[in-house]
């Protein structure tokens, strides 16, 4: 007997909308079982995970703050994913964006003005674009698999960051610890809400999301990307250049990941250090698919993902549940969301194999 996934001929519109709700109900049931088995009151645990992070203005600020880099990376990746271009290296492009933008802040340290921040953001975007351009050119010129090259370049970027903070960019007054100087006030993104850490980067992320939405749904270039993804043969017949789609996808996703990197540095950490991202670039791949590659979906998916990070911390702080449990619960949530999404569009068929003599 074999299990086979077959695309459904008719995808029920109603089920498409219902699938997130089904996933939510399944997650709640699984949560009740999981937390009861651990001897924790499931109602308290679920409340702590989903509600408690958002019960203060500060918490809401953190929610949006953590969603910001996820949204920026995921919205960029979605362009390529729709065009069948697989950029797995947003983490590296984020890192290079942070490195390049921070380089500007450090170069003008002590000699700055209101022009500094826009310049940092601009250079950060360029850094991410440049890093994204490498796998696209390798693909276009040598047909190198962009999944591998973009992924590997992520580790190269992290090593470059490590070299800089351990070496030439180390804070001269920092006792040789691997950190750069803290940026001057002109290199720090302004806070939006007093009493929170929510900074201008969140607004930039929303603006970028809207721009990408318009680009994909209203422009000819965006149309070309979609066609290249859905019907490569048709795109080739129409004379759309595959190479241009690849380059464009990498420039957009790289640039937005680079923006995420510099926004994260200029908004929260205000200095470079060996680790600047808990894997936002990789988590963004999940976010992009969780949001069905649609800008609005990605917007909500990034908020959900962000809430899962915050909720996991809350379970540790308030209920002393170990980190592994929160990891399991986060995994369950993603499993149900993605699983019900697949089952709405595909069905499982049991196929009995003919017996061979």
């Amino acid at each position: 007997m074999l299990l086979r996934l077959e695309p459904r001929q008719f995808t029920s519109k109603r089920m498409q909308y219902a699938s997130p709700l089904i996933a939510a109900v399944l997650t709640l049931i699984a949560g009740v079982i999981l937390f009861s088995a651990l001897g924790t009151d499931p109602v308290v645990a679920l409340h702590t995970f989903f509600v408690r992070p958002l019960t203060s203005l500060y918490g809401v600020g953190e929610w949006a703050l953590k969603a910001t880099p996820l949204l920026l990376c995921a919205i960029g990746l979605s362009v390529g994913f729709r065009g069948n271009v697989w950029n797995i290296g947003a983490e590296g492009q984020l890192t290079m964006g942070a490195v390049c933008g921070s380089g500007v802040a450090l170069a003008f340290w002590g000699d700055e003005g209101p022009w500094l921040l826009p310049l940092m953001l601009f250079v950060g975007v360029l850094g991410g674009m440049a890093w994204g351009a490498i796998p696209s050119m390798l693909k276009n010129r040598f047909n190198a698999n962009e999944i591998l090259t973009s992924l590997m370049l992520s580790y190269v970027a992290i090593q470059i960051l490590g070299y800089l903070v351990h070496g030439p960019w180390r804070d001269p007054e920092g006792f040789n610890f691997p950190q750069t100087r803290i940026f001057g006030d002109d290199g720090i993104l302004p806070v939006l809400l007093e009493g929170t850490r929510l900074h201008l980067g969140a607004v930039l992320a929303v603006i970028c999301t809207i721009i990408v939405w318009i680009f994909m749904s209203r422009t000819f270039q965006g149309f070309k990307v979609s066609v290249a993804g859905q019907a490569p043969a048709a795109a080739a017949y129409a004379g759309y250049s595959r190479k241009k789609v690849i380059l464009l996808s990498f420039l957009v996703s790289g640039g937005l990941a680079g923006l995420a990197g510099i926004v994260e540095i200029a908004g929260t950490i205000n200095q470079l250090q060996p680790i600047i991202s808990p894997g936002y670039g990789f988590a963004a791949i999940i976010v992009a698919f969780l949001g069905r590659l649609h800008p609005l979906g990605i917007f909500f998916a990034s908020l959900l993902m962000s809430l899962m990070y915050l909720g996991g911390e809350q379970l540790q702080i308030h209920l002393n549940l170990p980190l592994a449990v929160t990891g399991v619960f986060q995994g369950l949530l993603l499993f149900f969301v993605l699983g019900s999404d697949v089952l709405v569009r595909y069905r499982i068929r049991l196929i009995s194999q003919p017996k061979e003599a």
Partner: protein
Amino acid sequence: MTKLKSWRSLVAGLAVVAVAIAAGFGPARAADPLKVAFVYVSPIGDAGWTFQHDLARKAIEAKFGDKIKTSYVESVGEGPDAERVIRQLAADGNQLIFTTSFGYMNPTIKVAKQFPNVTFAHATGYKRSDNVSTYLARFYEGRYLAGIIAGKMTKSNTLGYVAAFPIPEVVRGINAFARGVRSVNPDAEVRVVWVSSWYDPGKEREAADTLIANGADVLMQHTDSTAVVQAAQDRKVYAIGYHSDMKKYGPKAHLTASTHNWNQFYIDKVQAVMDGTAKSDDTWGGIGAGMVELSPLGDMVPADVRKLVETASADIGSGKLHPFAGPVVDNKGKTRVPAGENISDGDLLGMQYYVEGVVGDLPK
């Protein structure tokens, strides 16, 4: 217009709810147990840096019983997440918060400013403020003792050292080890392999294998996993553990481990906060203070070596012996500390050279 109004009232309503909930998080009353929180950089696991801090957390629980309530958060990233976690612990009524990794330095200082009535203690950093203390242990004293054992146990006169990053803390450990080795075996050399990670069992294992292939027969590590001890066990050479007693990962290889013991420091800190006498200070205790100790020596270590280690340990504890007593000569032949003097704490904290006995150049 009406739509705008209803939005406004919604926002106002939310703000009221938020304030009400925030008020519920106010500081604990006097009769309540003292809430003490810990921020860990990695999972607790079975051995390593965080494991030792958690042992001390359990020690204060055992000591103070229901007079305190502890909590911890594992695997908190050293980026922007740290600030949120530390802030939440403070807002949640914890009166004493230990932040146990270097990368938490700036977030700790930032949050402490917003919570002047909470006491913070940050491990391994150098920034202090009115309610932020710093603490560290003189791990190099344990390294020196480990060096004595390694220098006596080696047959090949080549010792391997798996190291994380070339920061002063790590360089100091390598140098103290080399000076311990050279104090009993002037012919032995220390070879270092850098793995650019605090915790990466795969890379640590490779580094250990490389060192063994190059003739090292005693391995020392400044990384967080047990891979080096396991490699030594498999390849039938000796190893010295770090952070925690790692004997069970390589019983035939494990000579000893240079371990951390935060128990007494944490007990004292909790007591000070209870008595209202906590003040901002810097603690840098070693063998004398019980913050650094060797785990029980393996059976393969002969009696005369045990004797040597005991004497040296007692002398370091009493201050009679300093692992960096002059002359300290670097591996290029330059005298860094003249004869008759001990190295200053400032020079120890910024150490960026290899002493004689270490092979190679320090990565820049």
